[in-house]
């Protein structure tokens, strides 16, 4: 898994360098996300691009076709074609994540994945973003997800940092304290 991530970071860095030279890191990132969403959502395309017995040139052609249909520019089409040709199409989600991190670092921002028991109000989102920005010194982009399995509150993750403000977390801590005696 680690090597998977390392490989994804290498590809993402290569694309990021070219995109930065072109001055279109954000736009390229959005195109890449769209193409990755198509790959992930289309099981047939995923199968074709990840099967090793399909010729690399064919994989490249299929990937570029998909990227073109998804509305990606030439750079992203070529990039996705190269990734598929080298048999790394299954790395695309990780490449997208790594690319996003590079762009976020460049722009001094971070993404906070927030799981909450109920949808956060706009005010709550702003308050949470403000608190996280204050705590981390970066602009925060909230990526919210409602998780019905949570009892209450939310869990926010920024990179490797996790803030557990859920009732589940409090109960789990209480469970540990009580179990330890």
């Amino acid at each position: 898994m680690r090597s998977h991530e390392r490989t994804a970071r290498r590809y993402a860095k290569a694309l990021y360098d070219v995109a930065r030279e072109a001055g279109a890191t954000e736009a390229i990132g959005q195109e890449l996300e769209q193409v990755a969403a198509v790959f992930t959502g289309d099981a047939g395309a995923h199968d074709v691009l990840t099967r090793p017995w399909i010729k690399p040139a064919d994989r490249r052609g299929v990937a570029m076709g998909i990227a073109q249909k998804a509305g990606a520019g030439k750079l992203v089409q070529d990039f996705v074609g190269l990734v598929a040709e080298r048999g790394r199409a299954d790395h695309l989600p990780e490449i997208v994540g790594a690319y996003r991190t590079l762009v976020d670092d460049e722009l001094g921002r971070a993404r906070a994945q927030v799981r909450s028991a109920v949808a956060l109000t706009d005010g709550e989102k702003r308050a949470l973003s403000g608190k996280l920005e204050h705590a981390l010194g970066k602009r925060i982009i909230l990526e919210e997800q409602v998780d019905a399995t949570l009892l209450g509150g939310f869990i926010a993750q920024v990179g490797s940092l996790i803030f557990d403000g859920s009732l589940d977390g409090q109960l789990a801590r209480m469970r540990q304290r009580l179990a330890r005696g």
Partner: protein
Amino acid sequence: MIRVLAIAALLLGVLPAAALASEGGGGLINLDRSIIIQGINFLLLLLILGKLLYKPLLAKMEERTQAIRKSLEEAQAARAEAQREREEHAGKLQAAYAEAQAIRATALKEAAEEQRRLVEGARAEAGRLVESARNEMAQEVTRARQALRQEVVDLAITAAERLIRKSLRDEDHRRIVQDAIGRVEKVG
């Protein structure tokens, strides 16, 4: 022996002379020239008897005496040898007895030592077993307590979760979220 031979010779010499005297009617011994012949006869007879009978008899007697003496000496030597051997055997027996006693004493000592060692070992092993059993029992009790505590905690937390899930209203969610947001400062 010599005396016997002399008497025999005398009788041989006198009896013919007495016989001659009785034939002549002149008594037991006639003092005439026949007495000289008788004397010569007697001497000849004495000489012949001495040569043929007396000397071999003496030699034989001497030989037997020597044989008896030799037998006696051999018997003496055999007895002395038997005595020596008996003493030697007695000595060996004594030594063997002493050695057997020493071996027995050593064996007894070793057996006592072995017994002591075994008893000590068994005692130590028993102590270890008791200690181990005690420890295991203590661990088992601790585990059981921990399991029981965990079970009670699980039951209590599960019940609390159900209760919370049932009782939470929207305003409670809002309050919980706001409380959590208020605590975000502690992230760093």
